């Protein structure tokens, strides 16, 4: 088991390195840098001005060198202005005395860089936004997981019954409703003046400081709905399989009450498969989070991703992708370990 986790961790780090390099490469392509220079300076910059701006800020070094600097395994760039003789660099502000300048500053040293859009340290921004999204995700999980499991168990309890048919159709419908569709419908029905039901708020901006039932319900329900159907269907499938097992038949023949069969005998085995599915839903939820945060104007991690990508804020975007890739990989690992742990029939040598 230890070796298995170690090997998985190795593959994870390799994957994360590859992916960050791809992001790095895509954001550092010349047209993207040109756009960055123009948003930083002004939009009517000449080509020479763009080139000199990029040169001055260390963007024109070879790609692997820049990547090494970002990682913190290569010394940061230094640039001496040919006219004023002033020295600027990646790892220190202009005008720092020579002995106080550090050479390495990268992810390994804990320095995530500087955001060109927010004019702030990337690490701090990402941490605040992640906190806000964490709050949202927590609420989503609280709504989604119990609902999905209940629907799945109720549907899978008696295969082919009316309850099963209607709940299965409901879960199919919920997987067919992406967040931007259900969100739009929810806002129109529950928050707009057109239908007159002003039960909730169509914007969740105020929920960032003070989440109330009124401003937090719609975003949470919107994300939960899309993920719910899938988990419910998986739970149903595993429940129907368990319900046909021999030991359930034995229990029925012994005359155990149906509710006891479901709750005491079937449920524990039926919940192994959904656990994996729930863990693997996290990356999907990330998509939902980006859409919902944009739609409801909730300034969390997804909103940050849109801002960073839309403005080609390279270091912020890299930090965002590192976090999201890490979320994906860690949940995969947890789901694998949890599966082995929950199901003693599977052992990985």
């Amino acid at each position, binding site marked *: 088991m230890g070796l298995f986790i170690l090997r998985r961790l190795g593959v994870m780090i390799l994957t994360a390195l590859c992916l960050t390099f791809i992001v790095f490469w895509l954001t550092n392509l010349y047209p993207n840098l040109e756009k960055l220079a123009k948003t930083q300076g002004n939009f009517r910059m000449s080509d020479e001005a763009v080139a000199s701006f990029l040169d001055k800020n260390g963007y024109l070094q070879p790609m692997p060198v820049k990547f090494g600097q970002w990682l913190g395994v290569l010394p940061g760039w230094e640039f001496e202005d040919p006219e004023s003789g002033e020295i600027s660099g990646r790892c220190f502000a202009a005008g720092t005395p020579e002995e106080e300048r550090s050479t390495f500053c990268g992810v390994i040293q804990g320095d995530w860089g500087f955001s060109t859009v927010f004019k702030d340290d990337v690490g701090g921004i990402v941490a605040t936004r992640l906190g806000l999204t964490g709050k949202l995700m927590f609420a989503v999980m609280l709504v989604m997981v119990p609902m999905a499991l209940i629907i799945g168990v109720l549907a899978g309890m008696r295969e082919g019954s009316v309850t099963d048919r209607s709940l299965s159709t409901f879960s*199919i419908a919920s997987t067919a409703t992406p967040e931007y569709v259900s969100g739009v419908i929810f806002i129109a029905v529950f928050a707009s003046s057109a239908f007159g039901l002003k039960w909730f708020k169509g914007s969740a901006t105020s929920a960032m400081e003070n989440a109330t039932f009124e401003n937090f319900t719609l975003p949470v329900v919107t994300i939960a709905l899309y993920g719910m159907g899938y988990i419910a269907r998986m739970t149903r499938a595993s429940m129907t399989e368990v319900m046909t097992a021999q030991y359930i038949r034995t229990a029925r023949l012994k005359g155990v009450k149906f509710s006891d069969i479901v709750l005491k005998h079937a449920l524990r085995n039926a919940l192994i498969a959904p656990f994996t599915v729930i863990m693997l839903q996290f990356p999907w939820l990330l998509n939902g989070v980006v859409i919902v945060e944009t739609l409801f104007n909730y300034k969390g991690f997804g909103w940050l991703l849109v801002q960073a990508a839309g403005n080609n804020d390279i270091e912020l975007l890299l930090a965002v992708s590192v976090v999201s890739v890490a979320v994906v990989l860690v949940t995969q690992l947890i789901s694998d370990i949890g599966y082995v742990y929950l199901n003693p029939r599977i052992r990985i040598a």
Partner: protein
Amino acid sequence: MEELSWGSILARMFLQLGPVWISLIVLFTLSLTYKRRLGLYGKLFDSTIGMIGFALVMFWVFVGVYGGPLDMLVTHDPLSQVSGMKNKPPGTPMRGVEEGEYAWFLLGGDNLARDVFSRLIKGAWVVVQIAPIATLFAFMVGITLGLPAGYYGGRLDTTLSFLANLILAFPVILLFYLLVTPEIVLTGIPNYMALFLFVFPLIFMCILLNSRYYTQPKVRTPLLIGVLGGLGWLYLSLVSTDGSVVATPTYAIPGLPPFLDLFDIDPGILVVFVSVVFVNSPTVFRIVRGLAMDIKTRDYVAAAQTRGEGPWYIMLWEILPNARGPLIVDFCLRIGYTTILLGTLGFFGLGLESESPDWGSTINAGRRLLALYPHAAIAPALALLTLVLGLNLLADGLREESLRD
């Protein structure tokens, strides 16, 4: 002229969609009459859920085809702005109607005073056009790489699976934001990706036919020349625009000259298409790989190996036909997922032009005024919902029917 009530709006929409209803009735009568002779397709008509799903899907297919290239059904030009119709509710009459013009905006006007109903129909064509073809390409890529990975296993499998997991670990939206931008189009990366991804159908057909007929060179050689010639021409027309395959401000790789080029694809559409294929193919790869690993242990595969068949024959003519059930079901689901992805792209204003009538862009344009004028965003949202729901129900019906025997 007065405003229409909801009853008459629905009645008028029903009449406007007349050709669609006629086609649906004809299709269903024919299919129900001959369902015993139509194989899996016919069996679909035994399940109510499958029939409902199929009806929903075919409804949008007919709407797309009639409204798009044939230009029927639409009441107004989807791009023209009519003064005085900005954000008007459904059923608003037009002022100063001329002879031969439709007098109402059936589903109201959007924030640029365009007819929501006509844009909805034109938007159906965008989806009906892109989603199935993109899914098909993703399947070609996934099958061509997944079969050998599952069949041979070993180092090939490890490498390909690592690459697939690499793409799968990327959050889809981040990938879209990185790939589908005008700056990336300038670098020519989408063209390179198109060159790479679109060659897979060619490889697939080539291996498929060669593995079947290589013992009969007299059949194989002309067949391969014909098929590869045709597909190759299509491939070259697909990837080359204005006589070059990749054209960036600094250099260009020459392609098919314009007089041989059958069609040109707008770079905005191409990048959307390529990224959707790119995102979908690793999942297909994983499914095909899993199926191949399962099926290669069957007796008929062992029999074929004993007969001395080549590995590609076994993969494409023994394993693939026996994996068709789950693959067809997944194909339907995946078209739905692709539709959702296209909508996501439109929702973030990526790729397609902002005036494009596709549903995602329309939802994006309409969501800003959602609290006051919800109709402009709700119409495409419901359209997308019904299409994806139809595809999911269809997949469910197919799964049930294919499990039955």
